[in-house]
């Protein structure tokens, strides 16, 4: 079986605990306005590369001593990694045999069956919440959030460890009522261990240009660090979870 892979980073410390190999999968069905990786959207891309399961496992295994020493492992990201869940499942199964910890970072905009199917082999999910408000989600990502929230609840019920990721995009995701609702949603999910607030930055905008896409956020200023601290405090007191700023 083959997976379509956009790129691999052998050293990440921001996508789950410890030192991790992050595999960025090609393809995504959402169209988030702040997306840093619009080059991962298309299912087919000349820059992506096919990897056999065995081939990717070789890459992953090369770094086993680092995972062991730091409590790290493998994280699938993207794009939307779960579009290629069959491939991920094969890799996760093998990682289990090798005692390498498994994680994926997903918008969870995917059929719940897929999520359930992966649960036995998944140690951690980095679950994105784009917008708690369904209409705003539609505007921000091109899709509603019903599936997303449902899948987070499913993960929670099945006792999968969850880290929530939430992008602070001024005037799109930082309205008080949205933050409050999101935090309260999280508070009720015991499986959520922590929340990463990711400040919006425009470093990905050049990629939009390269792809002839119209970047709509030129006017938006990245949030100031003071403001972020404030939000982090608010979020943490409402959700009763540790909040980290990336």
């Amino acid at each position: 079986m083959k997976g379509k892979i956009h790129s691999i980073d052998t050293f990440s410390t921001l996508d789950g605990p410890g030192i991790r190999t992050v595999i960025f999968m090609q393809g995504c069905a959402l169209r988030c306005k702040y997306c840093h990786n619009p080059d991962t959207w298309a299912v087919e891309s000349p820059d992506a590369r096919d990897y056999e399961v065995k081939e990717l496992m070789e890459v992953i295994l090369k770094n086993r001593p680092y995972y062991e020493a730091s409590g790290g492992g493998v994280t699938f990201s993207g794009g939307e990694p779960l579009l290629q869940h069959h491939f991920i499942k094969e890799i996760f199964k093998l990682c289990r045999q090798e005692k390498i910890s498994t994680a994926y970072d997903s918008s969870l905009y995917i059929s719940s069956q897929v999520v359930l199917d992966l649960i036995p082999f998944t140690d951690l999910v980095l679950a994105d919440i784009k917008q708690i408000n369904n209409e705003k989600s539609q505007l921000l990502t091109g899709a509603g959030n019903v599936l997303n929230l449902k899948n987070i609840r499913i993960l929670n019920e099945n006792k999968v460890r969850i880290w929530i990721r939430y992008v602070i995009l001024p005037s799109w995701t930082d309205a008080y009522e949205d933050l409050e609702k999101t935090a309260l949603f999280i508070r009720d999910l015991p499986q959520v261990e922590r929340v990463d607030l990711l400040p919006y930055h425009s470093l990905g905008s050049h990629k939009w240009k390269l792809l002839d896409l119209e970047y709509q956020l030129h006017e938006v200023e990245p949030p100031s660090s003071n403001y972020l601290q404030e939000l982090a405090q608010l979020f943490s007191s409402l959700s009763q979870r540790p909040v980290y700023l990336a």
Partner: protein
Amino acid sequence: MFTQWQDFEPGRWMCEIDVRDFIQRNYHPYDGDDSFLSGPSARTRSLWDKCQELLRRERSRNGVLEVDADIPITINSHPPGYIDRDLELIVGLQTDSPLKRAINIYGGLRTSVRACRAYGVEPPSSLIDFFEKHRRTHNDGVFTVYTPEMRLARRVGIITGLPDSYGRGRIIADYRRVPLYGINYLIRTKEDDRDSLNKTMSDYSIQLRERISDQIKALQSLKEMAAAYGFDISQPAANTREAIQWLYFAYLGAIKEQNGAAMSLGRVATFLDIYIERDLEKGIINEEAAQELIDQLVIKLRLVRHLRTPEYSELFAGDPNWVTESIGGAGVDGRHLVTKNSYRILHTLQNLGPAPEPNMTILWSKNLPSPFINFCSRLSIKTSSIQYENDDLMRPLYGDDYGIACCVSAMRLGKESQLFGARCNLAKLLLYAINGGIDEMTEDQVGREMPVYEGEYLDFDQVMHRLKIQMDWLAELYVNTMNIIHYMHDRYAPENLQMAMHDSDVHYFMAFGIAGLSVAADSLSAIKYARVKTVRNECGIIRDFVIEGEYPRYGNDDDRVDELVVELVRMFIKYLKKYPAYRNAEHTLSVLTITSNVMYGKHTGTTPDGRKRGEALAPGANPLHGREEKGALAACNSVAKIPYKYARDGISFTFSIVPDSLGKSTAEQVNNLRGLLQGYFTKGGHHMNVNVIHPEVLKEAMEHPEQYPDLTIRVSGYAVHFIKLSREQQEEVIARTFYRRM
């Protein structure tokens, strides 16, 4: 038995010189954390303030505060010097005043004069006259016998940085012998050694008799030097303060007698801990007092100065002395060698602030206690002042009482020594292979004469074949050049005092080195996996290349090219070993550049990997910047593939990362840095310099150096004050890959 040895666990060390045995029987491994540590005392703070003022003045005077051009330095050339007698617990300076640099003429008359003139002073003409007429110096000796071929090789830069015009250094005397045994005991042992020599007067025994006699004289001089400061070091040290003072005197004598490039300290922290524990036990000192003594020792080590020429600084930028102290590691019995004093000496980076000296080197073993690893990682993140070396890799070869000289050179203390040999330029050698030995920059015939490569496209097998011929040529020339240098160094600038703190029968390594490894390997990879077209100038010399297609690059954990790296290293040490080395030395090889990668690059033409003429080579064993595409670990793994057995003099890897890329919280960053180090060493890596810093901070420091006097970063194998680098070198450091996530 000496009364000073009371309460120590007896052993063989009492009957003969055996510092290792003393340590093994007496040290207390410490498994706890850093919470016991004390801050700097008021006295230390005042003293360090005074030093900082001096350092500031030194910076404002172009890096050299004062030069004494009148008195050539020897162990007793200068009267005692002090910073502030009332504040100093550990005394002794190289000259009569702090940061004043003396001339060391035995290494080379011409060099000393040039160095003086570079700083606007002139040695007295009577002095110059005397040396010209009556006393040959090392540098002069070497050039008297150099062949035209050697001079040419040196001039074009295929072999450079050789210790033919400066002290070779890289010798670690076992300074601990002085506090443990006292000078008289050391003299007696040397006398016994001399008397037990074969009565037949062969070259060997005559030379050795002479050497040992000179060593005894040097020990006597050391005793006099200490006496001038009011201390009698003929007997062993009786307490902590004496132990540190005796040890420092031993080191001070060595840096007065020699201005070697690297004058390393060895492995003293755990040794000294034994004295501290004994005094703590007896209630003679408390923790504050122990830390105060270590802080004061480190202050002295930070003030070591030698007078250098500007050319020297181009090779070894930032005025380094490699006062390398090896910390931690494990014993052959499996116990780790971390003591509270391992913490104390590292803690000076906090008490006195970050600094390049002493060159703090952690000997990494999987047996190190976890709190200690966390402490080191935290300090690395905070100060970027620490390097790490793989003890589990070195211990089987050097036992558990070795030290690191300079950056990455291991040797058993007091039993082994090295003959240092800088490095040659492999990237240039590859161009010689293509151009039939003609230098691509000067167009001299330097290497073995062959026709220039004829085809339009470079063929891998043909280039490899040619490379082997040139490599054999270089190896022979390099070994012979080194033989001359070290013969003359022994003859005209011997390290009498340092060798007096060695066994009389020393095992020697002859340490060769290579620069440009990654460029040479990437070039071979381009030739093998892409198509490389040659571009000739009007004389038919190949000066440029057109690469058609892609090729795997070193630094991406890709065996296709990483194997070429290994092959180059393996081939070169094999050729070197073909040619016998002076003193029957064992040939070793390092992959280390110091900061000379910038200078070597300047003198190297365009290479088949696409690197342009004059561009810097990568430092040490690093991949060339910008060529690692698979992230930090892929680069680490590529470097870790170079087998230590082929490069026993060390494989230097400098790793720079922005803090955020190590994790979000300090706890995460510490955990991930230690994971990175442990993983790298499990993979077989030998050495890692760790910088945790934003390149933006470095850019800022380039513009406003006055605001960053203490900003310390690690370059290949040592640490420097960033602002002391030349602009070119600063730019190279910034251009170097910083791992970060976009």
